């Protein structure tokens, strides 16, 4: 028996090709890439026309006195001369502004939900520095009151991420900001998966001194990079095994698939280009290192998250086609955030790189328009002339691109999803509120009719139930 195996191995592909199997081939094993499929169904919506508004289309265009028509959950027309079909709901938006819905690429809603009690701490799978097998959607509590507050801030789509304790934190999930009974009800159909990685202080702090890791590392930035590279090398090897299995099977051999490894499944998915990497990284030198790791293992980093020092290497980020998802002005709370400046976002924009305003906060996600306003003002004062229409790309189009959903949302373009916010005024003013937030043409938040707004299960029967927040 041993002899026969050796012989087959020696004959290799030729033998296999000449004798297509001996009739004993087992079923071909293919890994289900979508074992937790979206069960999202759009909320009911009718035909709606919003008229007389200042519209920022999200692609850099601005229309005064503009109208936008929503039909079948899509943007069906936009401009100054749009006619509504009979029976359409007409919203007079004179003096008000319309923008695409805000897309937050960095949220922990649902995985670190409110109330933030210990029992709800579901974002960091501490214990092993590489946990690509941990999926944020498996911790996603759809009853997080933060989702409703985010809708009140005009957020229509969010990427929910694992935390940054690990070198590889796990898979993210992109959701529509709609009520759901289970996580799958919120999943954005067809949105590619993301994978969270983390540079710098957090992983080395969590694991330094042998804490939390049987391997006693990483303890330093050196250990961090060794950890990423070994993980990618392992993923390459794993992918080669599966490729070989496929070749052998198709050649008619009776072969068993490689042992399934859930961690390497996700990492290999990145190497195949199916999963986008979103990497928590503050310092310019950390980002510079990761750009080379990216080239070494031939994958793409979709975005650096937080990216507090992107302004120091904005040209390199532009060259490498990596987005920076940034705060307007958070800085200083740890060493790698010490060099944060208020002009980070406009400076990245000026360099022609992809700039995104993100929150990483259940509070910040409610006011991302305000974050953009501060960044815009600081940029202008530093001599970077950016229009409000261009600044809005930080809030919807660029995040949509980094999540791989820009063909469906992120701009107000005929045929795209009607993910829209009607603001009470100029959204770059602190006094402006979202009056209506639409996801796929359906109203998910209505400031002027608070009784229609969702109240999460947790808030029922509690102080402040259904209150204006």
């Amino acid at each position, binding site marked *: 028996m041993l002899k026969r195996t050796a012989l087959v191995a020696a004959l290799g592909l030729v033998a296999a090709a000449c004798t297509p199997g001996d009739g004993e081939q087992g079923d071909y094993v293919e890994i289900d890439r979508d074992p937790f499929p979206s069960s999202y169904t759009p909320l009911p919506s009718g035909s709606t026309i919003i008229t007389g508004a200042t519209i920022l289309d999200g692609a850099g265009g601005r229309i005064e006195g503009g109208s936008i028509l929503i039909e079948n959950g899509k943007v069906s027309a936009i401009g100054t001369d749009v006619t509504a079909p009979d029976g359409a709901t007409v919203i007079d938006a004179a003096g008000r502004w319309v923008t695409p819905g805000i897309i937050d690429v960095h949220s922990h809603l649902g995985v670190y939900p*409110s*109330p*933030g*009690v210990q029992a709800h701490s579901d974002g960091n799978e501490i214990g092993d520095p590489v946990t690509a097998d941990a999926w944020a959607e498996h911790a996603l509590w759809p009853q997080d*009151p*933060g989702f409703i*507050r985010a809708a009140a801030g005009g957020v229509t789509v969010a990427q929910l991420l694992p935390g940054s304790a690990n070198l590889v934190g796990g898979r993210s999930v992109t959701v529509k900001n709609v009520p759901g009974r289970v996580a799958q009800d919120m999943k954005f159909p067809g949105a590619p998966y993301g994978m969270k990685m983390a540079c710098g*202080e957090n992983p080395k*702090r969590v694991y330094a001194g042998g804490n939390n890791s049987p391997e006693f590392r990483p303890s330093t930035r050196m250990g961090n990079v060794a950890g990423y590279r070994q993980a990618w090398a392992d993923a390459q090897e794993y992918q080669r095994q599966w490729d070989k299995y496929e070749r052998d099977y198709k050649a008619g051999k009776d072969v068993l698939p490689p042992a399934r490894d859930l961690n390497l499944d996700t990492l290999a998915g990145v190497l195949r280009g199916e999963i986008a990497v979103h990497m928590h990284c503050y310092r310019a030198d950390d980002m510079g290192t990761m750009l080379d790791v990216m080239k070494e293992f031939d994958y793409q980093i979709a975005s650096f998250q937080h990216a507090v020092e992107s*302004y*120091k*290497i*904005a*040209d390199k980020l532009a060259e490498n086609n990596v987005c920076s998802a940034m705060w307007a*002005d*958070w*800085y*200083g*709370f*740890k*060493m*790698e955030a*010490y*060099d*944060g*400046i*208020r*002009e980070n976002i406009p*400076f990245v924009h000026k*360099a022609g790189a992809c700039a995104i305003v993100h929150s990483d906060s*259940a*509070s910040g996600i*409610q*006011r991302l328009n*305000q974050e953009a*306003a*501060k960044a*815009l*003002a600081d940029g202008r*004062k*530093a*001599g970077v002339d950016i229009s409000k229409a261009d600044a809005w790309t930080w809030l919807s189009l660029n995040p949509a691109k980094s999540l791989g959903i820009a063909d469906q949302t992120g701009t107000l373009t005929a045929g795209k999803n009607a993910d829209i916010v009607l603001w009470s005024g100029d959204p*770059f*003013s*602190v*006094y*402006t*509120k979202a009056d209506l937030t639409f996801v796929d043409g359906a109203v998910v938040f209505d400031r002027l009719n608070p009784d229609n707004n969702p109240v999460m299960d*947790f*808030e029922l029967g*509690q*102080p*402040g139930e259904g*209150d*204006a*927040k």
Partner: protein
Amino acid sequence: MRKLISIAALAATTLTAVCFTASVSAEDIAITGGRAFTNGGNGEVENATILVSGGKITSVSSGGAVPDGYRVIDATGKWVTAGFMAADTSLGLTEVSLSGGINDASAPTEKGAIGLSIVPALNPANIFIPNTRIEGVTRAMSRMTTSGDMWLGVGAVLKLNDSDIVAREKAFLAIDLDEGSANKVGGSRAVLWSKLNEKFQEAKDKMDAAAKKDDDKDAKRPSAEDATLNAVLSGDMPVYAVVNRKADILQLIAFQNRFGVRVILGGAAEAWMVADMLAAAGIGVVLEPSNNLPGNFDTLGQTSAAAGRLHAAGVKVAFIPPGTHNARLVVQNAGIAVSMGMPWAAAMDALTVNPAEMFGVGDSYGKLSAGMDADVVVWDGDPLELMSSPDAVLIAGEDMPLVSRQTKLRDRYKDLDRSPAFDR
């Protein structure tokens, strides 16, 4: 001899400090042509001439003449306000809180810290001070955030210039009466409130007994703890109590009534639910207007509408910024309160006259009027707006350059044609 030297050294230091302060704030400045709000959000003066001399405001008038020798800051078309105050921070005590060494705002192993003052721990060279003031925030309440129990020591009011940053040293006794504190004090609120009331009862009995003794000869100098509690019990120093849950706020009101002390309520997530009682008790509220989520079971009723509701009920309100590093964002927080129903003028009060009065500096700061310290900010628009910013910031008469470590980094990397730019 040794004593003599140290006294001489102390005198020399004091003298130098006085001379230094005098030299920088002696400039006579006139701020002209602006739209000034002299009393929080009220007291609007068009075309205001504000004269500053010797670090103080000497006059405010509409269209007033500028005396000879005054340097003019032209505020035509601009808004002029008092410098703003962040009403709960740890400015001067914390550098890089998470991973950059010691954080003097936190003393997790220290218990019974009633008598200690934060002042010896303050660092006027802290980079967060210039970062804050160039955004128009010229004052801050500062305190410790953590100890081994409920006592957080005596906090101060700071003025955010470079040299002599303490505006009021013994401004308040800070006490944490929230969930986290109960965790450390016996693990239950039952223990926490009992210990608080016991401590004050003991102090009151001791003070009463001392008052009955006519003969002062045997009186010992009170300990720092006794001195602090006596100051609180005699109404000279308020208590700043961090409390969120409605039931706990009711306990705090009972505590105030029991001992006749002056209380300021900080945190205050559910304060709006008992707004009328707080107004009747004269308790001021310091809150973070952007907080509107049930962060834990103490804050279930939290809403950004709270500031407006408390104001409507007659409660004096001041604002907590989102963290010490971003103390400057207290201004955005005021705008958020307005967006949720607080009148603009009331939000301006909450940035100036209200915290000044609460923390005992109202006689020298908070208004633009003769005799006040010249904390004056010239804004390029509505100061609460996100896209407005200061064009000039005066602190106690000193025209502060709008420069910080952050602006220096900005200027260094504005153009990436050479990197890194080692030139200054």
